[in-house]
């Protein structure tokens, strides 16, 4: 494996990890609203969250370009407030990956939150626990498997994201060229087949690793609960 290939893998991991970590709390909040609250526009929120899943990725990428590009309203805002630019940077790749992964994060978290028995939360309240404590000691631990499943699914999706990324931040080696984009570029050149295959094997290993990690963590959670620890 060449140094360039290693750099591509590292960049992809960085992009996917950043995307997952930033999207996770937001996805949890949205999942919570959808699972627990009744409000006007709930259907609309549900639709917007699902949009990246059903829209052509290129369209999502173009939308991001309009909103978060150097001239876009949100792009300018982020630049002014946080000094954060997205256009043609790895941060933009992470944003695109995060947006595309979002629906996949929300769904399992929402399902696991809906599966938490509200009666248990009520019982915790009768035992004197404040809302935030009830959340931390009852709701969150019981929803953790769903949270984990969502995170792994989101991470895998972020790792493989292609259409929105290439539209939004282009295919710049060392900056926005993640695994999928690099494989695509290599396949375009007559001599790139071997290198492309190597990267494909790496993506398989990364995805497999993520799934195994989540399985193991899931088992740990279930076992950690039995109080012998």
């Amino acid at each position, binding site marked *: 494996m060449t140094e360039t290939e290693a750099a591509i893998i590292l960049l992809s991991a960085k992009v996917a990890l950043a995307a997952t970590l930033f999207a996770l709390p937001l996805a949890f909040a949205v999942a919570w609203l959808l699972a627990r609250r009744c409000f006007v526009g709930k259907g609309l929120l549900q639709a917007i969250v699902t949009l990246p899943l059903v829209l052509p990725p290129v369209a999502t990428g173009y939308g991001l370009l309009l909103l978060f590009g150097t001239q876009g309203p949100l792009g300018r805002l982020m630049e002014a407030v946080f000094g954060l630019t997205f256009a043609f940077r790895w941060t933009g790749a992470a944003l695109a990956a995060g947006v595309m992964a979002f629906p996949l994060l929300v769904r399992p978290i929402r399902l696991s939150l809906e599966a938490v028995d509200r*009666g248990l939360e009520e*019982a*915790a309240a*009768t*035992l*004197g626990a404040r809302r935030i404590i009830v959340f931390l000691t009852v709701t969150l631990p019981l929803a953790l498997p769903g949270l984990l499943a969502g995170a792994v699914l989101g991470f895998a999706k972020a790792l493989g994201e292609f259409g929105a990324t290439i539209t939004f931040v282009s295919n710049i080696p060392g900056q926005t060229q993640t695994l999928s984009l690099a494989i695509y570029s290599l396949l375009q050149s007559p001599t790139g087949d071997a290198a492309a295959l190597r990267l494909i094997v790496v993506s398989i290993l990364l995805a497999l690793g993520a799934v195994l990690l989540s399985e193991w963590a899931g088992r740990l959670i279930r076992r950690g609960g039995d109080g*012998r620890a």
Partner: protein
Amino acid sequence: MGGLEVDIAGKAGSFAVSARFTAAPGVTALFGRSGAGKSTILKMIAGTARPDEGRIVSDGRVLFDAAAGIDLPVRARGIGFVFQEDRLFPHLSVRRNLTYARWAGRRAVGRPLPEVVALLGLEDHLDRLPGTLSGGERQRVAIGRALLADPRILLMDEPLSSLDRQRRAEILPYLEAVANETCIPVLYVSHETEEVARLADKVVAVEAGRVRAVGSPAEILGGEEGGETAVLLEGRVTGVDPHYETATVDIGGATVELSAPGLPMGARVRLRVRASDVAIATRPHEGLSIRNQLSCTIERVTVKGSAAEILLALGEKRLVSRITAKSAEALGLAVGQRVVALVKAVSVERARLMRPDEAVE
């Protein structure tokens, strides 16, 4: 120790509930059929449902007052709640479940954990997960968890209803232990006469969302129950015979003798006398194996098909005898007549040691 004062009215869905009663330390049963509104009343006291008007005061502390705009949240009401289903936290060990109110609810450390664990026989289960326990064991943990919340009122919503007969029989002694030693008001919701008879000091009968009657278990449960007529009598043990393992119980105006090993002198007991265990004679008899012959006056004769139920007055107390309609006619039983009730069997429903502040009924 103060009691609980409830005077509330409200709605659960389209069902209107209004209730007014007090509960002193000891067990007060909210008794009535399913759907009578008992659980709704309990939820309003716990704070998981909100009455429209009224007041709830526990131990001098106002939990709810519609007029004054006071509505304490569930967590601040100082309650312990035992639900129909155990509602144990499945991801926490029995020990962590039991002590939840302390580490998550910041409740004061009231009773020591080992004491409650011993009371409920949970010594061997502390490190297990709720999912590995039987239904009865789980409900015992739920009771312990509520007791360890240092509650000022203990609310129990049909805690045995989700269990089969055998498990109920397994838990009842533990509930009796809790009832006997508690010094806070315990509100026990049930539609089972048997449970109420064994556990309650006072019964609030609830019907169609309203309090129908309030009184002692003997007064409220005295009538018909599940097709079998029986009466409950309260009394005090005035004599014991260790050799024959019998006890003499003063039920106020009369004494009955029953075989019951281990009843201590002075214990307050609740007795159940089935109507089918009471025969009637027009005059006292000698040479009978039946030792309890009580002189009574007939208050009412009710003929139901081939059977007759005779309501008998024994001083202030009442007994019911079930004989055949033919016998009733042959003996010429009539209201106001003096007869002798021959009591074949008496079962002890509940026995508890007298507290010094308790008067004999």
